[in-house]
């Protein structure tokens, strides 16, 4: 079904170009040249937690959050609220278990951290492979989201959106040169927030002024199925206790292992600021998810016929409800925000893959980094073009399940259990990856599985059993092949858990303040 373009293509393309351009400008202007020493003193201050938290939000809020959450709520109502809750609460786990020790370790990537903790190159390689896999899986929905958004608003063929996102991101990673990524990503967060909040407020006020268009609240699913195409099966949110628990496990623990989020923690100057940053991220995300939720509810009540293309609800709704240039402008604003989401998440992921790949294959050279960035963008682009569209929030949810079954146990046990061995870590990573990956694959390709409800649930949402399995294998293998803990491990653990020394120097402080 090809909907009539709801936006003039020129307006849509203008909005997308504006996002790309502003992003570049912010990046370049973010680094002021300072000429006086007092300026320098300010410049040598490290990134403030507020900035860093905004940057993490900018990188984290992907297609799934921007489009997918509203789509799920549109179709499923309150049941789908688990997704925004899980996406946000994952940072609580990060705060509790990982943020501070990871920053104190001084490791820039997860493979570096694992190699330093376990003293094993095999662990580094296994983790590198997983990080690349995870990032690829994560980029695919971003590109599909871009294709969907551009296609539904302008009628342009789907591949244009995917290719455009990849082209912009690869170019900026390869020829980026001097720019401040933190400022860029922080700007992207506020752009996304504004691009959802303003239209949402407008729509609410507009509806409040006119009343719901059809006069009565609609049971969206029942009313919609008559005159709209059937709702895709994968858009239906998980129901039942097992599936809900499984999704929550995936989202809560999956955030712990996202490579592009963890890299941002390096920018914090020390452990406590990493903690503060995470708290701010939590509150920023809590505010942000109000708006996709609002869009979902608005769509459910005011335009239930959009359920067939629910993922595009956010982009279509303003132009649908408000006629004339105002509606078009609001839709264009949302489209710009959506593009910012695809661009920032894709670029964050691509940078982390390129870092890992250039380290493993090219010995960490700058040239290798560029080659790796270009090469690693090709795989998800191919996958996105060959595979059909999927439900965004659901497929990103599966990536979270995969991360939760692999990187998350590795990080948590590395940080909190000193007896973890390299052999145990590798066995657990392999078990988690194989269990989670093959379950998802089987549930998709084995015919007739849809008829067996229990099996379908177990395989379709594997996190509830694959995450404990990975933990158990790591602990079990480490305990069986038990060896004395090397002193280097104890030193490392002391360093990542020891609070930064407080160096009071009253005399110096007194001199300074009396100036």
């Amino acid at each position, binding site marked *: 079904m090809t909907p009539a373009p709801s936006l003039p293509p020129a307006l849509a393309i203008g909005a997308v170009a504006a996002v790309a351009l502003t992003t570049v400008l912010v990046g370049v202007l973010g*680094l002021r*040249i*300072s*000429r006086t*020493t007092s*300026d*320098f*003193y300010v*410049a*040598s*201050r*490290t*990134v403030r937690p507020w900035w860093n938290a905004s940057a993490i939000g900018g990188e984290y809020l992907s297609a799934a959050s921007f489009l997918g959450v509203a789509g799920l709520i549109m179709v499923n109502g309150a049941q789908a609220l688990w997704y925004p809750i899980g996406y946000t609460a994952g940072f609580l786990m990060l705060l509790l278990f990982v943020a501070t020790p990871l920053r104190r370790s*001084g*490791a820039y*990537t997860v493979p*570096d*951290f694992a*190699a*330093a*903790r376990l003293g094993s190159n095999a662990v580094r390689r296994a983790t590198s*492979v997983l990080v690349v*896999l995870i990032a690829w*899986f994560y980029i*695919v929905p971003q590109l599909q989201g871009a294709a969907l958004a551009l296609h539904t608003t302008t009628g342009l063929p789907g591949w244009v959106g995917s290719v455009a996102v990849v082209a912009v991101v690869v170019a900026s990673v390869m020829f980026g040169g*001097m*720019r401040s990524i*933190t400022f860029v990503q922080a700007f992207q967060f506020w752009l996304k927030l504004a691009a959802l909040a303003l239209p949402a407020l407008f729509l609410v006020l507009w509806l409040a002024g006119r009343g719901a268009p059809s006069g009565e609240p609609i049971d969206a699913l029942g009313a919609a199925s008559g005159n709209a195409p059937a709702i*895709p*099966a994968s*858009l239906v949110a998980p129901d039942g206790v097992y599936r809900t628990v499984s999704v929550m496990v995936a989202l809560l623990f999956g955030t712990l292992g996202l490579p592009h989020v963890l890299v941002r923690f*390096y*920018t914090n*100057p*020390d452990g406590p600021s990493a903690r503060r940053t995470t708290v701010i991220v939590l509150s920023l995300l809590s505010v942000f998810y109000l708006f996709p939720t609002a869009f979902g509810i608005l769509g459910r009540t005011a335009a239930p016929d959009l359920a067939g293309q629910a993922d595009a609800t956010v982009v279509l709704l303003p132009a649908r409800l408000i006629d004339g240039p105002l509606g078009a402008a609001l839709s264009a604003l949302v489209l710009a925000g959506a593009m910012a989401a695809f661009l920032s998440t894709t670029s964050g992921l691509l940078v982390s893959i390129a*870092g890992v790949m250039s*380290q493993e*294959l090219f*010995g*960490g050279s*700058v040239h*290798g*980094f*560029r080659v790796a960035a270009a090469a690693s963008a090709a*795989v998800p682009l*191919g*996958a*996105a073009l*060959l*595979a*059909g*569209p999927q439900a965004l929030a659901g*497929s990103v949810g*599966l990536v979270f399940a995969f991360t939760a079954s692999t990187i998350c146990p590795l990080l948590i046990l590395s940080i909190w259990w000193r007896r973890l061995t390299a052999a145990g870590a590798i066995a657990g990573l392999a078990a988690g990856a194989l269990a989670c990956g093959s379950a998802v*694959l089987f549930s*998709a390709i084995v015919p007739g599985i849809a008829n067996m409800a229990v099996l379908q649930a177990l395989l379709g949402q594997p996190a509830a059993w694959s995450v404990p399995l990975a933990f158990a294998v790591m602990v079990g293998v480490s305990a069986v092949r038990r060896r004395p803990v*090397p002193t280097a491990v104890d030193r490392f653990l002391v*360093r990542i858990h020891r609070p*930064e020394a407080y160096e009071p120097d009253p005399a110096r402080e007194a001199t*300074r303040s009396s100036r």
Partner: protein
Amino acid sequence: MSPESLAAAVVVVIVVLAALGLAVAAVALRLWRSRRDFGSDAERATYTTLHAAAQAGRHLRGGLEPDGAAKAVRHLRAMLGSPALALTDEARLLAWDGESPAHSGTVMALALKSLAGGRARIASAPEVSCSAAGCGEADCRLRHAVVAPVQAGSRTIGTVVAFAPDARAGLVSATNEVAAWVATQVELAELDRSRTLLMEAEVRALRAQISPHFIYNSLNAIASYILTDPERARELVVEFADFTRYSFRRHGDFTTLAEELRSIDRYLLLERARFGDRLQVSLRIAPEVLGTAVPFLSLQPLVENAVKHGIEAREGVGRISITAEEEGADAVVRVEDDGVGADPERLRQVLAGHAGGEHVGLRNVDARLRQVYGDDHGIVVETAPGAGTLITLRVPKSQPDHDVGR
């Protein structure tokens, strides 16, 4: 099967296949590189022996320590082809590899004579006996032992004990050679250690070296302000105190880029007091790299060099620019001046350690960076007489092994 789940499956299959393909290609490339041009059996034997030696050598580079010895002894046994092999230092058994491990209790008794006399010998029954060792294996092959001393210089620092069913002359000479080879590795380890000590001494010297000229000039500059602008003079004295406090700190080989830049800020403030408007500095620092660990005092000599050649050695205004940014997984710092420059050939001599003189600070920074991060990470100097100087320093952002010593 719905088209939606098919799409998911297609994505999974494509991505996994791509990853597998990449992994297979990487492994194949590595295998192909190591296996090409393998000809006769003799060549293969040479390769096997040298490979075992290289493996063992890596583990012995920390000296005769239990951890390294445990890993190395396996390869040493492969080189000798004996059923069991032990490695000791002067006082204790470091590692045992091979069959009938009950015999490991008797190793020190066997080694004592060679440790005292410094000569190789063959021990047989009754010294090597299953009943004395408490070995219960029916067909134990450990009948004789060849004990060869490991001698570093004139000292005997350990022994290699090879067990065998029969004491052939070939085994004795081979064991002697292995012991000599182990001695070489241990001496290399000591060389490494003394190189590190030398580096540390050089850093200490560098800390002391900052002082004379700079202290003299700074104090003179401050003195000139005491009557005309006492407030500024007071500030300068405080900055001076802070600067020396940082430079003379005792703990930690690493610090953050932010700390290092802060110290440079103080340094430039003091130099500015001396040169006034003749010194113009511009800075462009990406905040992301400020937390990166760098060797202590690795930037200050570069900036000092820029001041020396950009301002001191010429007339008129001199400009210095300092930038720091992310490039891939590295943090890159550039220090540039538009001063008199230098002869590249002469600078190359200095950096190679063949000539002394005014660039000793640069040489020291270069040597320390190479030692810590490998030869790819030395400083890069672009200069020519009259054309200014650009010094680039590149360190990996990820350094979980380095404590910045907060």
